[in-house]
């Protein structure tokens, strides 16, 4: 999952990575020195400290607690386990390609950031260590849903860092002015959207570029499970009942011109927010600081609010749109020490919140002042934490999930421009999932 601030700079980052890789493929710098201690040594007594390298893609932006500062703090407190944190400037997919090459070359770091949807792919490629026993002791520190996303077929491979439950963002001041009620169900959302459209406003946007995770998360919110096991083979259900419900909602909104069609990461989306033609949007929890940033210095300041995702059924349920954890790579010589740092890192709630994350660790998150001000004094992170708890706990991804995103986005673009239907997106996902699994030599149930 492309994530948070890094995402906005995605193109530029890709540029940098491309330039770096095309210059000379054979000379990429590595981030770790092989540990001097022998494999299998757990605690080092009076000898050389254990070296742990950690590769991440957190934004490390202005005013945030930098990852390197966290590592420094850890190193002071733990002279036996010395951590080196390195930021990877590039796309998630490129980082995975690098990790794969490094693991094969034996120069990979111990710890690396990985999106929840990428974890199964990394596992299948044999890049991850089995840290089930080490992780067991830390499980209670994390929300069960997030922890389960770091477990692949019974093997735990790391610890979760943040989550991206879908929530509903809206401009409360505009809602009040137009006499709109905040929708709690998707039926209400459709009604409110049509009323608002009559007054020239949109309370929701259809975002083709986000189709892969955003629509999947909505199917999860509707109680769907796209991928499950059946006799040790994958059963793919991406176009089932839940997806049909999601398709029905959006087809209705599109057909009645009640939803704005804009790419989430295009200029049009930001423009619509700033000229207040778009006054509501379904987005992931990690969009809270991004939306605030996009609308900083406009009339929108202090007007917006966060609510739970309008429910598809009777119960309050939402779905995972992104989020990531920190995995232990196979070539790590000191998985126990790596996990010790991993757990410490992921429970530094304040520091991680400052990076714009909605943490997977349990414990109170304090809403940063700037965010609170933008959302009219609301305790935003408390609302997001509630959404985290309402996540559909059963939405695992297939190892080839990254391969189907572009086809889904292309289908969503066609649906948005009226050349296709919303349901086409899900049938595309279904077919692409099956063919990509078969192509990768993985079993599919028929």
């Amino acid at each position: 999952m492309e994530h948070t601030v890094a995402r906005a700079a995605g193109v530029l980052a890709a540029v940098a990575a491309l330039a770096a890789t095309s210059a000379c493929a054979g000379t990429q710098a590595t981030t770790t020195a092989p540990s001097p201690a022998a494999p299998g040594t757990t605690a080092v007594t009076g000898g050389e400290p254990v070296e742990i390298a950690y590769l991440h893609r957190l934004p490390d932006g202005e005013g945030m607690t930098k990852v390197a500062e966290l590592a420094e703090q850890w190193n002071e407190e733990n002279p036996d386990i010395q951590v080196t944190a390195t930021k990877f400037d590039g796309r998630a997919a490129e980082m995975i390609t690098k990790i794969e090459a490094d693991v094969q070359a034996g120069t990979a770091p111990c710890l690396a950031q990985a999106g929840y949807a990428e974890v199964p792919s990394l596992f299948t490629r044999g890049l991850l260590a089995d840290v089930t026993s080490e992780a067991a002791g830390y499980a209670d520190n994390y929300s069960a849903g997030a922890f389960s996303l770091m477990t692949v077929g019974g093997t735990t491979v790391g610890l979760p860092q943040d989550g991206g439950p879908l929530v509903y963002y809206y401009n409360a001041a505009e809602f009040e002015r137009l006499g709109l009620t905040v929708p709690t169900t998707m039926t209400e959302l459709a009604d409110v959207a049509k009323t608002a459209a009559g007054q020239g406003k949109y309370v929701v946007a259809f975002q083709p570029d986000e189709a892969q995770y955003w629509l999947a998360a909505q199917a999860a919110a509707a109680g769907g499970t796209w991928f499950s096991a059946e006799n040790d083979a994958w059963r793919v259900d991406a176009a089932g009942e839940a997806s049909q419900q999601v398709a029905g909602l959006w087809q209705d909104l599109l057909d009645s011109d009640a939803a704005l069609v804009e790419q989430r990461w295009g200029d049009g989306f930001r423009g619509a927010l700033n000229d207040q033609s778009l006054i509501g949007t379904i987005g992931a929890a990690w969009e809270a600081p991004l939306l605030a940033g996009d609308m900083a210095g406009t009339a929108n300041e202090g007007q917006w609010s966060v609510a739970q995702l309008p429910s598809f059924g009777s119960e309050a349920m939402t779905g995972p749109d992104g989020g990531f954890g920190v995995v232990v790579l196979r070539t790590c010589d000191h998985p126990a020490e790596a996990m010790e740092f991993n757990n410490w890192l992921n429970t530094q709630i304040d520091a991680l919140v400052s990076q714009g994350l909605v943490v997977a660790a349990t414990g109170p998150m304090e809403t940063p002042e700037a965010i609170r001000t933008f959302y009219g004094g609301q305790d935003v992170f408390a609302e997001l934490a509630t959404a985290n708890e309402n996540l559909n706990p059963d939405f695992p991804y297939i190892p080839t999930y990254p391969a189907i995103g572009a086809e889904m986005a292309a289908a969503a673009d066609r649906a948005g421009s009226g050349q296709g239907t919303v349901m086409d997106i899900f049938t595309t996902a279904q077919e692409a999932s099956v063919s990509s699994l078969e192509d990768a030599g993985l079993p599919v149930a028929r």
Partner: protein
Amino acid sequence: MAARDRRARGGRGFGRRGFGRSHEARTGWMFLSPFVLLFALCFLAPIVVSVRAAFHRDLPTGGGLYGGGELVETFVGVENFAQVLATPALWAGLGRVVLFGIFQIPVMIGLALLLALLLDSEVVRRVTVFRLGFFLPFAIPGVIAALLWTYIYSPRLSPINQVLGAVGAPIDFFHPQMILVSMANMTTWTFAGYNMLIFLAALQAIPRELYEAARIDGASEARIVWAIKIPMVAPAALLAVLLSIIGTIQLFNEPTVLATVNPWMGNDFTPMVLAYNAMTGQAQPSGAGPASAVSIVMAVFAGVLAAGYALAQRRLAR
């Protein structure tokens, strides 16, 4: 160019003529070694690796949902090639670059020749300023140029459309029927100046006596251009077109950047975009094997096109 060839041929006799020569040869190799090393490391090695990868595939060995958590590089013969050639996206992408090349290359080469002729003529003063000006877009890194044009094309920001919109005829640069033209404009802007330099160098190598003789014979400037200048730069045109054909087959920067704002373009708009995304597991087919197979297929295709063009050109010239 002919002179350079002759000199190279003359040098081949080295080493045979006695002891002192072999010492010289060793010195020569020493001077050459930095190049040979870098060439082997950055050029030959990747080719060998990708040819090898094209015949292999990483396949799971264990059963189960996640394939046992280990991939083994397996020799699969020509399976990757078979799969890649059976991928409709590859052919669709190939169709796009061929279509792109058919109209973009002649326009760009024509423009480059025109600019070079203008700069070579007596009409233009301050040639250096113009030469540098036309060449400048080439000095801008390709992706940066693509980003720049993306902003210029962007429906909400486009300065072009602010003008055209005012007269009621805005252009949708991102329309599926329009995107190739938009891209062609980007590459023409970037590479016209570069090709102009190739032509200009060729024009300035033409002996001035030819013009003088033609003028004494009463030829007009237009006639000089048509009967002397253009025929004399034909070899340069061959080079420029060959480079353009190869560049077009490798079309990557422009579609990659434009796809970030146009998801309908997918991850396989051109064959090279497909190869890249196959490599990072973001397109189907996935993996290093199929990605390498795509690259090799395209290299062969570019080679065949270039060779075909060079042959046709030579036959025409005769």
